[in-house]
């Protein structure tokens, strides 16, 4: 057991901090529901941050640390699947990569756009294709999810099949989502803490009221443990750890998102504050892979059998 960051990991995270600094602030009022940056994406690719899993001395935990760190940014980046799932399928798959469950083709698909690689995972195996315009149905323009999302309007007849165990892809998918959620939860908590520490009502900061303090403290406990479970799942590579990590992340999401908007009063509902960028991403992730119910069943099967 060694839970301290290695020198390599510290260096990678410091480099991401430097690279992402221009993207840490959010333009208020003029921010759209979705915030993306092609420049940020390009520099992550150029510097190899999405490829660390395959580097011997870095590996899956470092990849998870990268994903967690990037998820804290107000800008949405397709990092989790590229960094944690793509290496299992084909390192050369063009990004962004969109994962779709074979049994839920009608779900909103994150980062779906022409040129994206769509990977379909299910009992029949793992296959992929390149998304084209006429097979993409747009989401409503005001969807609050804070990711670019769209719908698949159809599947090709002859996708590329990949010789990889779909269970293993599902496992990595769970780790990817749990890890991204860990970062989002951390950023949403930090953002809320900052607001309630500054915002004064009844002559004192909101954060001095115990009604908020205890709920935020509980949120810290679950947020912290989502982080550790996600990293452990990345490290162990077991189906049980992956399902537990995502279950816990989705439980945490359900617990905190409502609270945070409540603590911000109306501001998190308006675009005066960036909170929605994290909470609504979390809400979409809380539905991923069937949500808590499916994660619970998957974890139960992995731990105790059918």
């Amino acid at each position, binding site marked *: 057991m060694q839970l301290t960051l290695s020198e390599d990991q510290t260096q990678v995270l410091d480099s991401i901090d430097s690279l992402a600094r221009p993207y840490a602030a959010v333009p208020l009022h003029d921010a759209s529901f979705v915030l993306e940056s092609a420049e940020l994406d390009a520099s992550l690719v150029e510097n190899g941050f999405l490829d660390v899993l395959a580097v011997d001395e870095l590996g899956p*935990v470092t990849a998870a640390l990268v994903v967690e760190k990037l998820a804290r940014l107000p800008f949405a980046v397709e990092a989790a699947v590229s960094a944690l799932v793509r290496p299992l399928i084909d390192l050369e798959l063009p990004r962004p990569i969109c994962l779709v469950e074979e049994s839920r083709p009608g779900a909103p698909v994150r980062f779906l756009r022409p040129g994206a690689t769509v990977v379909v995972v299910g009992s029949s195996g793992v296959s992929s294709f390149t998304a084209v315009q006429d097979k993409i149905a747009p989401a409503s323009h005001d969807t609050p999810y804070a990711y670019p999302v769209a719908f698949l309007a159809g599947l090709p007849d002859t996708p590329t099949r990949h010789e990889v165990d779909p269970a293993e892809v599902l496992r990595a998918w769970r780790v990817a989502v749990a890890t991204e959620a860990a970062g989002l939860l951390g950023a949403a908590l930090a953002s809320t803490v900052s607001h309630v520490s500054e915002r004064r009502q009844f002559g004192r*900061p909101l954060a001095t009221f115990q009604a908020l303090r205890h709920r935020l403290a509980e949120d810290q406990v679950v947020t912290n*443990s989502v982080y550790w*479970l996600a990293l452990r799942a990345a490290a162990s590579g077991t189906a049980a750890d992956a399902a*537990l990590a995502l279950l816990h992340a989705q439980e945490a999401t359900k617990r905190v998102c409502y609270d945070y908007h409540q603590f911000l009063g109306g501001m998190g509902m308006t675009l005066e504050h960036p909170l929605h960028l994290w909470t609504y991403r979390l809400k979409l992730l809380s539905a991923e892979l069937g949500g*808590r119910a499916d994660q619970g069943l998957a974890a*139960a099967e992995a731990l105790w059998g059918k």
Partner: protein
Amino acid sequence: MQFEWTAEQDEFRRKIRDFLHANLPQDWEAFSEHGPASPALTAFAREFCVKLAEAGILFPHWPVEMGGEGLGPWEQQILAEEMWIAGEPRGGQYMNVNWIGPTLQKYGTEDQKRRYLEPITRGQSLWCQGFSEPDAGSDLASLRTRARLVDGNYVIDGQKIWTSYAGLADTCFLLTRTSDDRKKGITIILVPMDTPGITVRQIPSLIGEGDIHEVFFDEVTVPESARFGEEGQAWEIVAYSLRNERLGIPRFTLARAALDRAVQMLGEQGRFSREYVRIEAARCAALCEAAATTNYAVVQRRADGRTIGAESSSARYATVMAERVVCEFVVEFLPEVLAGASPYLKMHHQRGIVAGIAAGSAEIQLNIIASEVLELPREPR
């Protein structure tokens, strides 16, 4: 970052398991239903801890200069996990090796170390913590048990309550008030429990026989040399001790083991196929593992030689959440276990339901997290 135990740590765990297998009686599970402070378990622990000492696993994590093997925080964690999963056969002596011994070593006089450390290392002493009072529970600093220095002796008057192990303890780690300053007026005195003027009354409880007491001090007189640390130093010493204590009981391991046992029972009865039950069980497992990993993050701090601060409150609260859901799961789906169907699960329940109270209430942990981890501005006083 490495989440696996090393080969040496696995070997150490195996050694403890082998020891437990060889030294716990056949009917141990039924026997462990006696509370950890019960006469039966206390008597058992006095023999068991001697064997642990002989096998070198009573306090192997203590530094070599204290007679330990200097094995470190991870081994302490492994030792505590295996003991707690087994139902804590050390009884109240777990406190000795977790925090009383190290605290004596750090703050005790040479005379106190000589007097108290040796019986701990032989597995022959039992301590109680004289902390809570009728009007000073979570608000510990409002305690009123008074110690007056009279002609080279402390004369103690007052009352403690909800004191575990007091019925059979040899010595009390007693918090007293020596001046009116709220925190700086509190002083620790090490009081032999057979000192005249001490009356112990058991408080019947749901959590096992002989566990909880009220303790009355009526002109209890001990020499000034019984003072532990300086006058007014108690708050600092207790903060140090409680940080160890919060980490000391790896309750999540027993909660997880109890959950596995409950699932096994449900499976045997053909009742573990309903999806709702399976999902609830998985939620429990997630919270147990969440508690494990956050506790391990704190152990890592200790292993790195860093100060343990409010992170231990966060880890402790995660443990309370895990204990709560497992206790609730078991009662909801296996109500028969509290009526005799599983001594092991009943034992877990008795220990699990106090998780949010012992070693500082869960709400106090939330206060600490709010102020020291989240660094929220303080509440007005």
